[in-house]
């Protein structure tokens, strides 16, 4: 298994290279010019040219990419064109916020979603199943921005229970951190919860109909054991897949929640950088996100192996 994991990790390198080339090309294809953005309202043709030269924007695209890559290989992701802040500092400053948001949202969604999904499956075609399924449908359909605004109106503007915005680092003030994260986590997690409920229900129904469940029942295995040891464990694989795919989407989608709740996360930072044509920030953060998603997928593959020993190390079922 160790060899397999190492192989998987090594395969990340060419993948990241390809992603970085695509990202670089896409960013450079965007209309707009960092030099013009930096010059603000004023600026003459000469100033624009001088700025482009200083920023290396007059080099060919391959040369610009090679310069960037050389820096990355030496551990230097460059500096922000706007603030001069090293990209690595920006990433270490913003990444924890986004990861905390995603982690808490996943925990929240899993804790709520899996039990509700089981209830739906067990109580199939009962009123509770209908209600929970309908609520899940609504949950999936509600845009995070809208949910976020509603939560702010209810809990901040009307009830004054929670802050509408802001972020306090956990290690600075744990309680303050939780207060600022409740609404963003709920807004982010609600769609994921709904997805997990639907996925768990579907997977559980599939497993509950299997022959081995009938066998367990006929052998007199306790209902709870049937449900949790035999059914849930086997039903978790598609649920985990769904969660991992949602996490990848949540990184992209975090910008919405970070914007609504003014969280200093990486999603917002990256979108701001795109609007400012701050290429080093965009490339650095895109690289980190790409590596994270690839690692996440690798981790999920490994988790499959632990959950279902029938899956061989090559990722295929025996």
């Amino acid at each position, binding site marked *: 298994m160790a060899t397999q994991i190492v192989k998987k990790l090594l395969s990340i390198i060419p993948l990241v290279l390809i992603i970085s080339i695509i990202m670089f090309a896409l960013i450079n294809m*965007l*209309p*707009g*010019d960092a030099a*013009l*953005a*930096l*010059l*603000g*309202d*004023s*600026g*003459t*043709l000469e*100033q*624009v040219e001088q*700025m482009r030269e200083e920023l290396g924007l007059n080099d060919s695209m391959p040369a610009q990419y090679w310069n960037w890559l050389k820096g990355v290989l030496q551990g230097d992701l460059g*500096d*922000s064109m*706007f*603030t*001069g*802040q090293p990209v690595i500092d920006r990433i270490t*400053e913003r990444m924890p916020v986004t990861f905390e948001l995603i982690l808490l949202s996943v925990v929240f969604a899993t804790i709520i979603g899996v039990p509700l999904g089981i209830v739906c499956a067990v109580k199939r075609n*009962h*009123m*509770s199943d209908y*209600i929970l399924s309908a609520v899940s449908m609504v949950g999936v359909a509600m845009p995070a921005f809208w949910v976020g*605004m509603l939560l*702010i*109106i*209810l809990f*901040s*503007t*009307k*009830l*004054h*229970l*929670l*802050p*509408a*915005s*802001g*972020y*306090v680092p956990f290690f*600075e*003030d744990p309680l303050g951190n939780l*207060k*600022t994260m409740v609404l963003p986590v709920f807004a982010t997690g609600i769609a994921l919860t709904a997805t997990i409920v639907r996925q768990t229900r579907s997977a559980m129904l599939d497993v509950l109909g299997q022959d081995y469940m009938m066998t367990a029942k006929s052998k007199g295995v306790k209902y709870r054991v049937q449900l949790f040891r035999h059914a849930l464990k086997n039903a978790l694989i598609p649920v985990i897949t769904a969660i991992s795919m949602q996490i990848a989407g949540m990184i992209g989608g975090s910008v919405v929640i970070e*914007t*609504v709740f*003014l*969280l*200093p996360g990486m999603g*917002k*930072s990256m979108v*701001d950088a795109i*609007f*400012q*044509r701050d290429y080093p920030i965009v490339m650095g953060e895109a690289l980190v996100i790409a590596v994270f998603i690839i690692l996440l997928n690798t981790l999920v593959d490994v988790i499959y192996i632990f959950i279902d020993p029938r899956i061989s190390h090559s990722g295929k079922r025996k």
Partner: protein
Amino acid sequence: MKKKLAVFMASLMLALSLTACGGSSAESSSQAGAASQASSAASSEGTAETTGGIKRGGVLVTSRVGVTPLNPIKYIAMQGDKIIEGLFFDSLVNINENMEVEPFLAESWTISDDGLTIDMKLKEGVHYFDGTEMTAETVKYCWDWYLDPNTAANFYTLISDVTSVDVVDDYTIRFNFSQPNAGFIETLSYQAGYVLSPASIDKYKETGDEEVFAREGGTGAFILTENVDGVSVTAEKNPNYHVMGEDGQPLPYLDGVRVNIIGDEAVAASNLMSGDLDMIDVVTQPAVVTQLQAAEGIDVRINAPREIFFLYMNMEQEPFDDPLVRQAMCYAVNREELNQVVSMGEGIQTPWVTLPTQWYYTDGEIIEYNPEKAKELLAEAGYPDGVDVELHYGTFGVLQQECELVQAQAAEAGFNISLVGMDGATLKSTWALQNPDAPAGMRIQNNIVPKSDPYTQMEYVFGENAIQNCSRWIDPEYQELLLQVKQTFDHDEAQVLLDRMQEIGLEQMPIVVLQAGPRRSALADHTMGVYFDCDASMNFRAAWLNK
């Protein structure tokens, strides 16, 4: 089980509906949110009442619609960026709400008869954050740096007539000019008028630290403590500030200011209503304005400047290379409807890019909506069946709404307008004068007016080198007059020149002026003493919180 579930759901629905119908809370707006924000802001020492009911202490939290570089030589928006920069940097002069120049770091000035030198007497007892005193020597050091083309200050073109700066005595400097510059003093109320400490300049040259001026080199009422780029800027009071308050003690009254960068007005409004913000810098969208006006404890104020909405037309390409088509476009918009819908009836009509409150405003004809006349002009120009054009707009503020209305109005006149929305950076680059591949068609713009002086205001839109000359209108006579305006100190003489410029503009119609909409800010009732100058840049040196 079913009954329990039904009871639970009913209770939940009831609770939610009661909450939603609860109306405005009478509680203080200083709630959990504000507290949590403040915890990472400058420390609050509590409030202690002083003279005239003014309370010292507290951290004011405001919003700013966009990112501001903290390095003043790299400003993006000449006027809007002053909201944050003004925390850290004082300018040599100020322009007040009545558009009059007032002394500030410079106490007085004398302009030579030939306009080629200006002697400026500096205020004594002003210290930079790093403790050094502001003197003529330090100001000269700063200006030598500004005037070095390698410094690449964004305001370089505005000060490039200055050939050198001399020290006359400890507190008097002399600006020497290659040619007279009548708007120079006014220009000093913007970024070029900020004075930075020599040590901070040296440090910047050495390290490239963009925040060093706001931390160590300014003379403003507040000192930068934290900048989370694109998210927030936090500042604490400068204990050695040189301006005294009503109580005879140094300003500022506040312990600190925190500026949250909030691009979405609806989000900013929610934060103001929840008490997480004490004010919003700019509110434009009618729905948000209405929401805030209806909210308890919030004042939506209209500031002195206005945003003049106008359409640039690319005069280098068809169809707007034809003056008849440009003229037709002028008849194809219903300005009153734009005012009522987008500016909520608070806009005014102006024939050109000036406001009636400016000394060089000249009245002129406001072209009425006349689609038939527009059709005739289009037919005369060779477009009897109408013409297809693109209208580019930035996807921020109310520009989309304005463009949709223009699209509908102009359709009656034979203009089949396709709307093309894009982000600010893309829009600016696409339409920059320097871009030889700029598209045909139109671009909408909303300029904050007034700018510091007539030259700057006109050059911004029509300068032969101006990035924002999106119509690509470079008329030799106009450019010549523009240069003369720059060199003319006498207002009456300048007025004659500006009148002629307006005539040329209205003859050739490089732009279609739409309406001059209001520029609004929203403040919680407890937010006091915030000063708005003529361009709606606000400063907080005498602001305080009545809570």
